[in-house]
């Protein structure tokens, strides 16, 4: 068979069901705690958005295919196979109504990784042709052009040129043997070139060699978001090939949540081996520089500010203390939002929701959760470390007419670097 079909979707889901999935379904006690952990349920109060309900088609397939009772029930006609209609009904729940933020997995008293199961069920939905248009488009562009936003190498080179001109530092491209290979999200290339600038200045101050790869500059992985491992693997492979070809020691995942999950956690499983290099998030690298005394800052932000923990970086990546230690270096009036850290609420645009135009209305409704958190602290500036969070936050704040600038943490650190930019020509220095 070729092309998408329900049969293929069901086969894909059957393939995804493993021992953990079976134990999750067997151990769910229907307590409903995941409901209130979910911003989509919380803001809509629609029971369809209760996290465990979003994987109901997978539960039915598990029961019918893999359990004695389920087989008996199927034989007696007590349960119906998952149908085209089911796929149609659940598509919106699986993609629009879940940002894979993982808050439900964290509160589940029996330890069921619901968010992980949604990642799995998306494999079946994508194979069944029930993925949203927006995500199909982004994934197609990522595979065919190299970037979900359609950014091609000439555009990257042009941005590199602009940045080099403005800071008088070299942005190395394809430099073999560099210590760090820096990935960028297309959002950063197009919307926030400040990030590239900040990285260049920080690396320069720290005296580290680094490079961007012309073959794999893009960090985002639409395959993970749409839930197609075959495509996600292809995208990870590009980064792995480029990094190993250049012989870098460490690949730095940028301020982008799911890119970090893709390259750091899912990547080795997708390609079936471990990397010959390390993967670190930019905040981990900055915090390491800080602890080694390689990050020297001056001056403190006067503004009252707070930090939005991106789900994939804090909750799933464990990077909670790093940004706070970094903020301590540059901020005087830092306050925590309620639920900050590992239990922070999603910006509402993660897991492919922001790339799915159809989900716009639901996303803005869910954003009210973030709004409530922000209303509680009344800050002047919002700092975060994920370009996707940043764009979602900016859109949400604009929609609710909240006047609050959103800044990337790396960029804020770079603003406060002790000026070492030298009389000696920087470009040579960076060699």
């Amino acid at each position, binding site marked *: 068979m*070729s*092309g998408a079909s329900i049969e293929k979707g069901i*086969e*894909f889901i*059957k393939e995804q*069901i493993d021992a953990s999935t079976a134990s999750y379904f067997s151990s769910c006690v229907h307590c409903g705690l995941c409901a209130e952990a979910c911003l989509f349920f919380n803001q809509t109060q629609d029971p369809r958005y209760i996290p465990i309900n979003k994987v109901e088609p997978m539960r039915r397939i598990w029961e019918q295919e893999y359990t004695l009772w389920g087989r008996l029930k199927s034989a007696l006609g007590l349960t119906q196979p998952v149908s085209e209609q089911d796929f149609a009904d659940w598509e919106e729940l699986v993609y629009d109504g879940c940002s894979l933020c993982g808050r439900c997995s964290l509160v589940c008293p029996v330890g069921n990784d619901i968010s992980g199961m949604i990642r799995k069920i998306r494999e079946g939905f994508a194979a069944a042709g029930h993925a949203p248009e927006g995500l*199909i488009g982004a*994934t197609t562009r990522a595979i065919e052009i190299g970037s979900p936003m359609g950014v091609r190498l000439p555009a990257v080179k042009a941005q590199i040129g602009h940045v080099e001109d403005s800071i008088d530092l070299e942005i190395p491209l394809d430099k073999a043997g560099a210590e760090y290979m820096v990935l960028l999200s297309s959002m950063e290339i197009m919307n926030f070139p400040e990030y590239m600038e900040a990285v260049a200045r920080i690396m320069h101050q720290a005296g580290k060699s680094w490079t961007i790869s012309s073959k794999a500059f893009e960090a985002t992985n639409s395959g993970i978001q749409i839930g*197609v491992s075959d495509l996600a693997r292809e995208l990870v492979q590009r980064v792995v090939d480029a990094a190993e070809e250049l012989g870098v020691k460490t690949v730095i995942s940028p301020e982008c949540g799911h890119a970090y999950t893709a390259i750091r956690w899912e990547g080795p499983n997708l390609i079936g081996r471990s990397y010959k290099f390390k993967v670190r998030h930019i905040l981990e690298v900055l915090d390491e520089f800080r602890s080694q005394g390689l990050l020297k800052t001056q001056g403190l932000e006067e503004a009252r500010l707070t930090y939005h923990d991106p789900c994939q970086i804090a909750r799933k990546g464990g990077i909670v203390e790093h940004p706070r230690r970094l903020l301590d270096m540059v901020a005087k009036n830092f306050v925590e939002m309620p639920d900050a850290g590992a239990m922070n609420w999603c910006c509402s645009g993660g897991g492919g929701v922001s790339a799915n135009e159809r989900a716009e209305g639901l996303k803005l409704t869910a954003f009210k959760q973030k709004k409530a958190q922000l209303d509680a602290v009344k800050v002047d500036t919002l700092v975060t470390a994920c370009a996707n969070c940043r764009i979602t936050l900016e859109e949400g704040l604009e929609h609710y007419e909240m006047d609050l600038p959103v800044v990337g943490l790396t960029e804020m650190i770079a603003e406060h670097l002790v000026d070492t930019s030298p009389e000696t020509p920087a470009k040579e220095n960076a060699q």
Partner: protein
Amino acid sequence: MAEEITLLESLRRRGVSRRGFLKFCTATASLMALPPALIPRVAAALEQAKRPSVIWLSFQECTGCTESLTRSHAPTVESLIFDHISLDYHHTLQAAAGDAAEHAREEAMKQHHGKYILVVDGSIPLAENGNYSTIAGISNLEMLKECAEGAAAIVSVGTCAAYGGLPMAKPNPTGAVGVSEIIKDKPIVNVPGCPPIPTVITGVLAHFLVFGSLPELDHLGRPKVFFGQNIHDRCYRRPFYERGQFAETFDDEGARKGWCLYKLGCKGPITYNACATNKWNEGTSWPVESGHGCIGCSEPGFWDFGGLYKALSVPTGNIGSTAVAAAALGVAAGAGLAAMNRSKKQAAAKAHETMTVTDLNKET
């Protein structure tokens, strides 16, 4: 002779401070499992309490109960109480002997008629007109009847006095019985045990001093506060029972690991006493903790249970091999299902056609 002074006064004379007295009251209250709010009441009652006269009769017994009491650590609640009751007659403890001793008993009975507490340890032989056991030429049966007549209450200390105990064990040649078989018209508290925990004996006396009444009793006449709980339910080895981990002999691996002693005849499951919670020797240990099963000494007829080392009930047939067979069957069935599921999953994986972007769109 009982002096007409209050307990507080008596304590003061012995140099016990008010603070020391209140500590004593707190200990007494907790011993009797009373809520802390009642401590002031305990103190007020004990301050006013006259030293009650106590007559202690020992019949067919081994003096173990008295040993238990006197070997208790000091200074303790029990020693304080015994310093402050007027123990007017006690075979083993009194200095007087012969006529003088019997005279003291008669004097106390006359002076405190209707108010004294009668403590009995040992069973009473009924066969041969009670001639198996006499004191000063008086049979135990006669002496009990005589002393019970003017008593406010009777405390049967030890299993022999309470239920007949060892002397009553089959074939019971002396026709031994407990106090309650003979005396029917007086309040009787049974404090069984072979011997009873000392604090349990004194706890009952303290209750009488504080409230002027006897504690609430169970269907076997035992104070619920001490005998309300099952040894097995409170045993620290209970988790091993739940997991089916039993010592099979007294020197096997299980015994060394402190597993459940049920199979070695532990009577914990049918025994009600405070050993597992109050413990012995200043809270140091208790039989099960020192490696021996409970023998059920506070239950009626415990000598005739059918052997101290015989398990209460053992399932018929070889449970071990049945369980192993059942488990093997279960494992095989599970493995069969797992294999079916695995092949189903493998088939799905095998049928997996690598997704391309064109596959994302339906019916291409």
